[in-house]
């Protein structure tokens, strides 16, 4: 594990709790639809509204998604787990309790690996459990009242709790991004953070290295990775300021305000809430037989980590590249398709991580809708590999293809006259001229200055208007200089 970077002499300790809405058709305990965006309370059945006499019945598909997640992170899937009531009063919580899991959750342990920059990190998971989502409060003014919409109440959630293994906001964001990609990869969550499908609560504390854990504050409901980093940074500095001023950190739940960039303690949270957890008598123990786990295992897509390992061993990709190619199922499919069309794996990875990634980040688009598809990319790479064009020229071709200017690699090469000169004789002739015209550089090179070599190469490229095959130029120049 890399050592922690201290902030103002303090070590930052971060754990995450992610609430992941599971992509089932119906709710976890009722037959209402989970579709987003319906008119208020039109997807709130008597069970969702907690009308007198109603009872919960568990959705099999929610359990199946939890099993899938557990297998994906190498966790233990509990053969027997218990639903418990978490009792508290809030208008968006119709029963006055949330059905959740407490002492015995469905998924126990597990770990998630990811990169921060080029450093590999591993975060252990404590657990993941099933629970129901609450409704929503709308604060538009209804004569000073709030409006409660219970459409969301009862949507299945998987709450994923990490150990406090993270040591920076950047690490926390990468962990969250990896988890986000994973749940979408597994097909258990649509990952739509704008719609609240994937939410992050971040527990942050600070301590002087070697000391026990400090008191943590929880930043709730972050729905953007950018905000996560900003919120953590603000919170860390706030906590350090408090401590340096001689005050103790009080456990609190805080909200991040993106407009002000500040975290602020919530007012309404129950002070050290006593949730009076007890096993829900309406729901007998959830038994998951080994056969069920085996079946889910058999139906799982190849996991990103497994696929990445395969890319490393079979394709010779470096670990980092392999991880990048498995950031999403769509990326992996793109990579594999380009490879299948004949392009060298490492070159595909370079283009995906470089030019493609750059453009997609700017446009916010998805790789499976990229204007340059895998087959086209493979053709382009082929033209570099066979010496037709240089890397620089390839970037120009790529731009033309991406912008929709053209759809054929060779046509663009011809139209823009990008074919590089690979004729040995022609290059040798030009080199002779360059050497003759640059005696000073020749002498400097002979005297040991390597930079002089580059200057000569530069002159040769200039003489050919950049069209000479650079590799060939290098090779032939070396020969000539002896």
């Amino acid at each position, binding site marked *: 594990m890399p050592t922690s970077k201290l902030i103002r002499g303090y070590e930052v300790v971060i754990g995450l709790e992610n609430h992941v809405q599971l992509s089932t058709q119906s709710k976890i305990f009722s037959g209402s639809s989970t579709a987003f965006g319906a008119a208020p309370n039109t997807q709130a059945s008597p069970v969702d509204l907690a009308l007198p006499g109603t009872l919960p019945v568990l959705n099999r598909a929610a359990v199946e998604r939890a099993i899938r997640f557990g297998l994906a992170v190498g966790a233990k899937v509990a053969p027997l787990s218990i639903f418990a009531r978490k009792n508290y009063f809030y208008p968006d919580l119709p029963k006055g309790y949330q059905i959740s899991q407490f002492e015995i959750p469905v998924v126990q342990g597990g770990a998630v690996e990811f990169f921060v920059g080029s450093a590999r990190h591993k975060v252990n998971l404590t657990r993941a459990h099933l629970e129901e989502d609450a409704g929503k409060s709308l604060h538009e003014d209804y004569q000073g009242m709030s409006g409660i919409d219970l459409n969301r109440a009862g949507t299945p959630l998987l709450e994923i709790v990490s150990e406090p293994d993270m040591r920076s906001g950047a690490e926390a964001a990468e962990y969250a991004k990896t988890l986000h990609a994973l749940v979408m990869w597994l097909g258990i969550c649509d990952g739509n953070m704008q719609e609240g499908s994937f939410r992050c609560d971040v527990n942050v504390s600070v301590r002087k290295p070697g000391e026990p854990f400090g008191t943590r504050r929880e930043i709730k409901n972050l729905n953007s990775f950018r905000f996560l980093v900003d919120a953590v940074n603000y919170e860390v500095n706030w906590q350090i300021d408090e401590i340096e001023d001689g005050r103790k950190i009080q456990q609190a739940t805080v909200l991040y305000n993106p407009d002000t960039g500040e975290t602020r303690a919530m007012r309404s949270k129950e002070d050290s809430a006593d949730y*009076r957890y007890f096993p829900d*008598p309406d729901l007998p123990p959830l038994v998951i037989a080994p056969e069920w786990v085996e079946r889910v295992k058999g139906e799982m897509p190849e996991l990103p980590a497994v696929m990445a390992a395969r890319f490393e061993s079979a394709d010779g990709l470096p670990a980092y590249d392999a991880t990048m190619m498995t950031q999403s199922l769509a990326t992996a499919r793109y990579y594999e398709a380009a490879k299948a069309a004949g392009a060298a794996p490492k070159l595909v990875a370079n283009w995906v991580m470089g030019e493609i990634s750059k453009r997609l980040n700017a446009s916010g688009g998805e790789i499976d809708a990229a204007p340059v598809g895998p087959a086209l990319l493979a053709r382009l790479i082929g033209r570099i590999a066979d010496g037709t064009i240089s890397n620089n020229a390839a970037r120009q071709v790529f731009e033309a293809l991406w912008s929709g200017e053209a759809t054929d690699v060779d046509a663009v090469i011809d139209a823009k006259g990008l074919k590089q000169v690979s004729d040995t004789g022609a290059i040798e002739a030009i080199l002779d001229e360059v050497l003759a015209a640059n005696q000073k550089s020749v002498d400097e090179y002979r005297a040991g200055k390597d930079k002089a070599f580059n200057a000569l190469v530069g002159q040769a490229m200039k003489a050919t208007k950049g069209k000479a095959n650079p590799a060939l130029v290098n090779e032939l120049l070396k020969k000539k200089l002896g």
Partner: protein
Amino acid sequence: MKPVHDMGVAELAAALKSRALSSREATQALLSRIATHDPALGAFLHVDADVALARADAADAVLAAGHAGALTGVPIAHKDIYVTADMPTTAGSRMLAGYRSPFDATVVARLNAAGTVGLGKLNCDEFAMGSANENSAYFPAHNPWDRSRVPGGSSGGSAVAVAARLVPGVTGTDTGGSIRQPASFCGITGIKPTYGVCSRYGMIAFASSLDQAGPMARSAEDCALLLAAMSGFDERDATSVNKPPQDFHAQMRAAREGATAAQPLRGLRIGLPREFFPAALSADVNAAVRAGLAELEKLGATLVDLSLPRTELAIPVYYIIAPAEASSNLSRFDGVKFGHRAAKYDDLLDMYKKTRAEGFGEEVKRRIMIGSYVLSHGYYDAYYLQAQKLRRMIADDFQQCFTQCDLIAGPVAPTVAWKHGEGKDDPTQAYLADIFTLPGSLAGLPGMSLPVGTGAGGMPVGLQLIGNYFQEGQLLHAAHALQQATDWHQAAPAGI
């Protein structure tokens, strides 16, 4: 033809089938009887003649077409703990004054589908919490045998309606004895089946791991007919046992192996736990229960002495578990989605507190407080967890007993019905009177109460029979045999 109100469920069903009278006529007769007698009895919280007569007419059409089932056209009524779409549901509480459920409880829907005619909603202790029907927020119910006395609870209105012959059969619920004890106090027959046999969907929850639906009527046979229609798997209740509806009437009639006409109960071993016959059991109740047991012996049963050593512990165990579950179940009553909301409040917190203070009665508040306390941080292990462990030990004790007997028998309550107001001073003392019904409730076992004569003041006494899991048939069979050989169950209070 005898008066409608003197006919039981089976009898009336037969009369309707033979078209000796119509369902409309039967319904009208009983509606009129309710109007005459109920003001002094307080059995009903709500009566709806229009809805009832419409159902009666529908039943008559079915009867005329010759498609009648076992219960078609029979007027009944439902404890106001069951939600009904066509009548308000209050659970005996101000919290739900005027509440109109959008759906029917499963048990109600099944009885409707069987062609019964619901006349109205029956009085009960608020949210089924109580043993005298004095905790109803509306008005108390009165024992038809002596109106200065309680009918028992929490299904007090149900028991009164049957005992006073306002309806031949009703639904009740039993969590700690709330069918058996009022049946005993009012001289009628009632059965609480095995936990999970009837659906709890639409039964306003008190204690989820204890609540069960059951019928009350004037005979085991009538109860068997009603229970058959009420019971069976419901996919909307995850604690519903995956068994189809059973023909309890057939099970009731099925002859025992080795039985004779004179000895229908030959070979039946009836266990008598010595803890069910303590010194505190009043002599009159003891005498009536012994008389009942003697009759069972005459019919061929053998009495076996045994022990249920943790009987007394059932009281603290129940009064920890039931309030704990109730405190959580009642959290939904918050003035947000349905039910009462305080008229004046400063903010959200104030709205919650005033709404619940105004909507709930004293006993409900008491149990919410107890329940919240035993679940709270630091007390959970010592109280709630300990109680659930003792609960298993009590259930295991019963299994031990059932290796030595087929049924367990004893009194339902230590005394006959007490006078109004007597239980009020010390609510905790009142809990002690549940001692005989609580153990069976905690174990989830089926239990019956059937009348075995009278005790002090001419008040009825009930004999309790407890069966092993899913042995409702055996209970009903024994009770039916007793009722064929005796006429205690046919006695009716004077003057009504």
